[in-house]
């Protein structure tokens, strides 16, 4: 046991070394700066205690940011997981063209922010954008909206583009982990007379628990960290309808020259991230224990 303990630390030490140098210091730096009034440039800083935090809690934009985060996380996680698991199960049952589809569905992941910004802002443009042109062409004029210009739809557009880009990733994660499920489980179930959909709900989905968990936590934290899409497509607008933590941090830091406020916001964001992770972990381990008990 002693030797295995040491082995465990040995195996994680390279990652921890990187973590200590490149992550811990920046976090401490942000915590420190968050107690100062500082423009991010000057050598001297003014200690202001928790004033930056108080300002953030008084800031009406925060409500919108939290709302955007929750809405974005909810829809992207659910829809991407649903589509991902559906496609993965199509491919695991090797429908025609599985390999081709699997390759294609992942392709949007390679699109850079610059590409997305340029292409989607054209597709979604109000007057001559391809989406509205198509809607008008098939007589659905009433559906042709001012997509990115209207706060009602802007967030929806960003969610849709996120789904466009990341469904392939969810699909691949599910697919890879489905292949790890031993086929004899299914064979036994078939012998017992379980229908395919029963197998899917009773075997596949429960056995992918840790993948659901992984994708859920990545989705939640990814939504908190959402930057590229709103930054390039809407700059957080219109009127903060698509503002997220990182875009607001960016604005504070580089447009308002308020590094203290930006750092305080970073710290708050980290705390939220920790709460999310903890909550999910507790839920996950509790369920695990229930399951273990049930299995005994």
């Amino acid at each position, binding site marked *: 046991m002693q030797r295995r303990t040491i082995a465990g630390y040995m195996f*994680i030490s390279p990652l921890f070394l*990187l973590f200590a140098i490149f992550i811990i*210091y920046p976090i401490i730096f*942000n915590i420190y700066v968050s107690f100062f009034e500082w423009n991010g440039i000057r050598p001297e800083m003014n200690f202001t205690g928790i004033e930056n935090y108080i300002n953030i809690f008084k800031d009406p934009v925060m409500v919108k940011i939290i709302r955007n985060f929750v809405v974005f996380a909810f829809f992207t996680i659910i829809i991407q997981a649903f589509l991902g698991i559906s496609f993965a199960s199509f491919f695991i049952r090797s429908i025609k063209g599985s390999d081709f589809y699997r390759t*294609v569905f992942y392709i949007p992941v390679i699109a850079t922010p610059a590409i997305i910004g*340029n*292409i989607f802002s054209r597709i979604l443009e109000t007057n001559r954008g391809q989406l509205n042109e198509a809607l008008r062409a098939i007589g659905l004029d009433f559906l042709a909206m001012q997509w990115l210009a209207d706060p009602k739809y802007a967030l929806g557009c960003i969610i849709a583009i996120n789904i466009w880009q990341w*469904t392939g990733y969810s699909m691949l994660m599910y697919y890879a*982990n489905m292949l790890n499920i031993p086929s004899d489980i299914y064979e036994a179930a078939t012998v017992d007379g379980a229908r395919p959909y029963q197998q899917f709900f009773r075997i596949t989905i429960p056995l992918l628990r840790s993948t659901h968990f992984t994708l859920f936590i990545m989705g939640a934290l990814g939504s908190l960290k959402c930057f590229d899409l709103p930054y390039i497509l809407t700059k957080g607008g219109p009127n903060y309808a698509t503002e997220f933590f990182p875009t607001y*941090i960016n604005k504070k830091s580089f447009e308002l020259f308020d590094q203290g406020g930006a750092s305080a916001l970073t710290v708050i964001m980290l705390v939220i991230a920790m709460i999310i992770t903890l909550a999910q972990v507790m839920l996950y381990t509790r369920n695990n224990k229930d399951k273990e008990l049930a299995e005994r």
Partner: protein
Amino acid sequence: MKNSRAYVILSELVCIVFMLFCLYPLGLMLVKSFSSGGFGNAKGGFDNYIKVFETVDLWPNFVTSFTVVGGTLLVVGVVTSMAAFAFSKLNFPAKNVLYYLLLTGMMVPVAALIFPLFQVVKGLGLNNTAFSLIFPYATLNALFNLIVLKNFFDGLPNELMEAAHIDGANTWRIFTRILFPLSLPGLSIVLIQTFLLSWNELQMAMIFINKPAMQPISVVPLRFMQNIGQSFPLGIMYACLVVCLLPIAIFYLFAQRLMVRGLTAGAVKG
């Protein structure tokens, strides 16, 4: 297992619709990269691509990008595999606490990281070298992918470990001989992801390396973008974006094949 007719039709239909959804925006980019712009006195076609190479000498940027991405992949591959294996298959005190500590590390947004990271990189004397990007990229990607790879290791049966232990293999051998090879499909997802993110990263690339000629390729489209209003039609910028994307696409197709081979191999064993 046979698929019912309704299942086949429905699934094919869904896949075709989603395929169009996936491909349309990228197809549009490809078309535009050959377009001549609005009024038709620019030439367009392959001239856009020729002009990209005429305007900017891309090769030094490609060299930097390949160095940076190669180094990052190496570090991420080794470091993440080891840590994911330990967190999944080994027991040691404070394991969970350390794991979740690492996970929160992936949460710091780049906007908040960049200034202190630059101080670190500069303190280590790495700025203006490829290493200034390799280590930050590797750290961020390793943390981001730790959860993915651990999940994959979790899916590998524990019995493998037990059996090997009884045979007298030590932990290192178990890892290198048995579990690491089995984790290759998962690792290839991780490496594809790492390749993408480190190839496309922009903010650090621009700030940690000063000389435009030494910066990674991801910075190059900016040079077109900031001037398109004045001197380049959009078609050329799209051509530049396509040029920058090509290596990713090639790597992806290659890694995808590796992954599929690994996946099917794993399935046979299971």
